[in-house]
């Protein structure tokens, strides 16, 4: 704020409307100038184009198309997101095996490289398709949309989209899913949800996996639930072990109720 006249930032931005004072207004400069090769434009030589678009607008449009496509066919799609090694594939293996004959499922398995996850998930009664993202650290709506007609059969009711193992980037890319599921393993620490709030605040469901290791890790389940609810009060929380099957029934009942 200007000490002489009390004009605030809004006034500064709009100019001083005719009144003058004996000092220059310093231009606030919180941003960086990484690309300064180009000579700064001088007034009169440049014009401003107002855009005001969300940067991920194109992805969001494609995601909306995917969402409509899935809704027309009555398919519930879950976007499964976690750090690498939290047990997404293991949970899906168990889930597909247990849902076999109960709910027709399909899986899109994303990985930076290899189709190992897709092969692990094959032969369990579900349509499975791999997406190798190459250099990219997340799935986008275009990749998913291109594969939807190939992975979803006429009878498919439930689609699992196994995102690339990464807690950061996938949270920003809407794929057209019904909702996001954030998976967290006890080995990662109770406070993961508040360290990566962008994902946990956007996920309708949080799964705490590897509860069979809780004893060895002095795992504080109540603290973890508190951290999850701190970033997302209304979230559904499931605590389970995909390895031993502990807590899995509740998760499966929930899935059955969805379709």
């Amino acid at each position, binding site marked *: 704020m200007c000490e002489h006249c009390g004009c605030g930032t809004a006034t500064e931005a709009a100019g001083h409307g005719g009144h003058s004072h004996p000092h220059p207004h310093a231009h606030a400069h919180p941003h960086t100038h990484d690309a300064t090769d180009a000579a700064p434009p001088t007034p009169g030589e*440049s014009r401003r184009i107002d855009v005001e678009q969300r940067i*991920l607008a194109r992805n969001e449009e494609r995601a909306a198309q995917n969402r409509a496509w899935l809704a027309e066919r009555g398919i519930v799609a879950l976007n499964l997101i976690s750090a690498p090694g939290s047990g997404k594939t293991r949970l899906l293996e168990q889930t597909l095996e247990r849902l076999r004959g109960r709910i027709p499922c399909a899986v899109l398995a994303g990985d930076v490289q290899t189709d190992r996850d897709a092969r692990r998930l094959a032969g369990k009664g579900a349509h499975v398709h791999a997406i190798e993202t190459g250099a990219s650290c997340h799935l986008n709506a275009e990749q998913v949309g291109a594969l939807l007609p190939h992975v979803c059969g006429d009878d498919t009711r439930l689609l699992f989209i196994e995102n690339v193992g990464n807690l950061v980037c996938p949270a920003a890319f809407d794929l057209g899913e019904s909702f996001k599921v954030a998976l967290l393993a006890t080995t990662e620490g109770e406070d993961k949800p508040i360290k990566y709030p962008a994902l946990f605040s956007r996920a309708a469901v949080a799964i705490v996996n590897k509860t069979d290791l809780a004893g060895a890790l002095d795992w504080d389940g109540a603290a973890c639930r508190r951290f999850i609810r701190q970033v997302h009060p209304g979230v559904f929380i499931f605590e389970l072990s995909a390895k031993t099957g502990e807590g899995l029934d509740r998760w499966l009942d929930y899935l059955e109720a969805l379709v």
Partner: protein
Amino acid sequence: MHELSLAVALVEQAEAVLEREGAPRALALTVRIGDWSGVDPDAFAFAFPVAAEGSRLAGARLEIEREPLRVRCRACGAVTEPPDAIPCCAACGAADVEPQAGQAFDLRALEVAAC
């Protein structure tokens, strides 16, 4: 990595605007990044010139405007800007809040050479 793919998305979007406007290249662009958007402004500023290389945005000046997280508390009704961008009410501490601002990740404007 994350910011690089976002910077690529920005370059594609800005190039589409330049194409529409018949502008050969951009001199500068203004981007708004919310503190609750999941985008790190420093990493984004670092990634942008790399993503812009060879495009109509090459060498363009990147201006980043920050948007603080602002939440409305469902418990006490206060509208506050919590510190550290953790979505809790700064007045009463409740976690049951509704974000009102801070999620932005927008291309606001482009500056191009006048024809």
